[in-house]
């Protein structure tokens, strides 16, 4: 992540309404109008919040018929990232053992 991306992310998450939109997007797909119905603000204002989240890479808008659905793959990517961390740890341990085995071969290493 670049500094700019981090700035966008923190700015996006600094607002309670936007955090709530992300929560709802993680839980399921909603159209912008469905989301707007849940807040005491205009459709345009909600749409603006969605755009901020979109720029930060937190949600994506996909078209379904006449609707614009707000979805997020953050949860999926987070899960994948955690699994890759576990896999990294597995290989760290394995190459450590490889290094120890090679070091045992005395006199023949470079």
């Amino acid at each position, binding site marked *: 992540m670049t500094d700019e991306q981090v700035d966008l992310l923190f700015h996006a998450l600094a607002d309670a309404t936007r955090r709530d939109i992300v929560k709802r997007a993680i839980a399921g797909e909603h159209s912008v109008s469905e989301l707007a119905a849940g807040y005491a603000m205009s459709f345009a204002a909600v749409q603006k919040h969605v755009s901020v989240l979109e720029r930060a890479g937190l949600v994506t808008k996909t078209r379904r018929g006449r609707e614009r659905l707000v979805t997020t793959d*953050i*949860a999926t990517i987070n899960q*994948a990232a955690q699994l890759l*961390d576990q*896999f990294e740890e597995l290989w760290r341990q394995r190459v450590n053992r490889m290094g120890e085995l090679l070091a045992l071969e005395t006199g023949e*290493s*470079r």
Partner: protein
Amino acid sequence: MTITAIHKDPEKLTMSFTAEFDSTPERVWQLWADPRLFEKWWGPPEYPATVVEHEFTPGGKVRYYMTGPEGEKYHGFSEFIAIDPPKALELGDGFLDDDGNEVEGMPTMTSRVDISDIGDATRMVITTMFPSLEAMEQLIEMGAEEGMKGSLSQVPDLLAAMA
């Protein structure tokens, strides 16, 4: 041994892992080619691996089991897809049932091992590709069951905490 680079791509479900050894490409190659050496590094000390079959040819397999502290056995295998000594190796990992038979329909991951002489050391790059998030979860969880999980580096999961 120095780990010089790790690249993880959670969107493409790949990891590449680079380590440098103070040794020759031939010796690093032997860690894969020699079953007695292979079993010394594949599993952690508390779950040692025992290789029961090791056919080091393209299409051949290494079958092994790991023995846990309670004497429980976990079977697994890797199929050698391509072998180019002492430079490159491609393998697919799979799981075996308690009797050592291949489990049909289980996810597999493929890994490529590249070994190169970089002058005063030997570089080994392992690139692993997972077919899907579900497969990755299953493979890594089964690996964890074999005691390979080790101490996890926990990532702060901001969004999971929010949800």
